[in-house]
């Protein structure tokens, strides 16, 4: 069983900066981590690996050189090997260009039975890369997956959708995007950390045999940010500070009024 997990190295959400001119995220000086939602994809891949040996997990990430840190952390959790796609030709890629690059590298590096993605990246916040990669590779896709059962050459999965949980099955190979509902991701082990330190990460750079000029980065991206602006907050901000029982009752009355002026109770 060959598994691949796509992970993204993202700035910590607390202190994001953006380049107002270019409309891209400024990565300099901001701590970056594994996209927290990708931990669930890693966890699910590890569970499959444990239940269905022999299996191997390859991590694939497109990002700056320091994404190595995130890849090593995922290796410490139990993944086997890692590929980092990096270079200035890739920077500024939108979800289309990112998915194209990831799919080319996946196609070249192996016939994966299951490719796992996070539900979305906390910086881009689109949920588009998983389905787009699947489409480039002509694979079936199942999104918002909360349970995976594997038997023979088939997966059965639950998907969390708006009104309930749907169960689907699909033949392999398949791409899954994993929801947080899958369970708690494990922590790196001491042994894993040791292995991660010495693990060699395979670098993929822009290569004419894989990509045509202009296919990647800003040039290869069909979407372009034309403007960035601060959202206008139109909140009225009436904040009451009741000091005694009577005032509490009054605030509650006003709260009920506030609601019933807007929605029929």
């Amino acid at each position, binding site marked *: 069983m060959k598994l691949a997990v796509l992970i993204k190295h993202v700035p910590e959400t607390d202190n994001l900066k*953006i380049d107002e001119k270019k*409309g891209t995220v400024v990565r300099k000086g901001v701590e970056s981590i594994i996209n927290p*939602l990708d931990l669930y994809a890693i966890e699910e891949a590890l569970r499959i690996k444990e239940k269905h040996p022999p299996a191997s997990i390859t991590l694939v990430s497109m990002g700056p050189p320091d994404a190595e840190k995130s890849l090593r952390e995922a290796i410490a959790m139990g993944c086997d090997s890692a590929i980092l796609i990096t270079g200035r030709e890739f920077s500024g890629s*939108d979800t*289309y260009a990112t*998915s*194209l690059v990831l799919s080319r590298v996946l196609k070249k590096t192996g016939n994966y039975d299951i490719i796992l993605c996070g539900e979305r990246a*906390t910086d881009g*916040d*689109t949920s*588009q*890369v998983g*389905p*787009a990669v*699947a*489409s480039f590779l002509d694979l*079936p896709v*199942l*999104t*918002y997956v909360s349970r995976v059962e594997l038997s023979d050459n088939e997966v059965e999965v639950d*998907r*969390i959708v*708006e009104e*309930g*949980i*749907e*169960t*689907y099955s*699909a*033949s392999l190979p*398949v791409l899954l995007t994993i929801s*947080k509902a899958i369970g708690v991701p494990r922590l790196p082990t001491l042994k894993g950390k040791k292995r991660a330190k010495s693990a060699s990460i395979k670098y993929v750079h822009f290569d004419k045999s894989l990509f045509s000029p202009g296919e990647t980065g800003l040039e290869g991206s*069909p*979407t*372009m*940010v034309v*403007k*960035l*602006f*601060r*959202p206008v907050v139109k*909140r009225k*901000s009436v*904040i*009451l*500070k*009741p000091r005694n029982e009577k005032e*509490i*009752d009054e*605030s*509650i*009355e*006003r*709260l*009920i009024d*506030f*609601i019933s002026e*807007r*929605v029929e*109770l």
Partner: protein
Amino acid sequence: MKKIKVLTLAETSDGEIVSESFELLAWARSLLETEESEGESSASSEKPQLEVISILPGKAHHPEELCYRGADRVIHLVQDEFQHFLPEVYRYALLEIIEREKPDVFLASATTTGRTIMPYLASKLRTGLTADCTKLRYDIETGKLLQTRPAVGGNVMATIKTVFGNVQMATVRPNSMRTPDSDSSRMVQIESLEFPPEKLRSKVRFLKREDFDKGESLHDARIIVSGGKGLKKAENFKLIEELAKHLGAGVGASREAVDRGWITYPHQVGLSGKTVTPEIYIAIGISGAIQHLAGMQSAESIISINIDPDAQIFSVSDFGIVGDLFEILPRLIEKLKERKKRAPEAER
């Protein structure tokens, strides 16, 4: 005069068209509005005409309702293969329809289906796609769709355009536009489109669906009552549920409440949970961490109750009470009960 052709993707649940699909028609109809005319009718004479076509996969009881709410035409995909969401089947059909109709714009709701099929389709079309837009405008001069969405956790808004690719595609945030009223005097035009069955094969099979209990689903709730760590323990979370019951509201939660097992994950609101846009969002014992705000700050009105006057949640609230939720909630619930008693007629 130039016609601007807009396709929208409708969705059904048990044969009923979902409200997001009607909202999409309001989105489509508003594309030519300008800042000045916003909200008014857009029937100015120099304006190009809009043609809005809804694609409706799966058998629906009332496909004509899409025309009543603003579609000029409905393409109804009635074959069994469209009954459930099979991405490969949907993609095939949508590619065929786009090839035939050559739309300028293609819109879907940012639902689980919309967010899956749109990127699956856009890659094949070699075009761009903007996720979860909160504003769309069509620039008549350039023919470009200006797609605005929150970026960086909602701290910044980004306006995006599609620079190459024939169809300009976007998903829009559910519940961020009023559902258009039904006008049965509008003309109905429905085409039942069928494809050769061998083209509709899929490696994915639908097996079953189990619906959440009523009230568990947040996506169409007009009011959401959310509880956070301030509730202190699992039993206390009942206060949130009870308040929600009396308000006819959905129940939400912060990650702290979910991680402590007080309520299940489908209720989590925020960056790693759901994005909700109810008319009223009530945050109780929630501090208002940026990751929580990311999921609820586009609610129409926000109410908060927190004991800490400096809690971040107050900075995004329209109405707030600084106080102990354990003092406030029982009385609030009591008052709501009294109100119901006083007006029993209005209930029926």
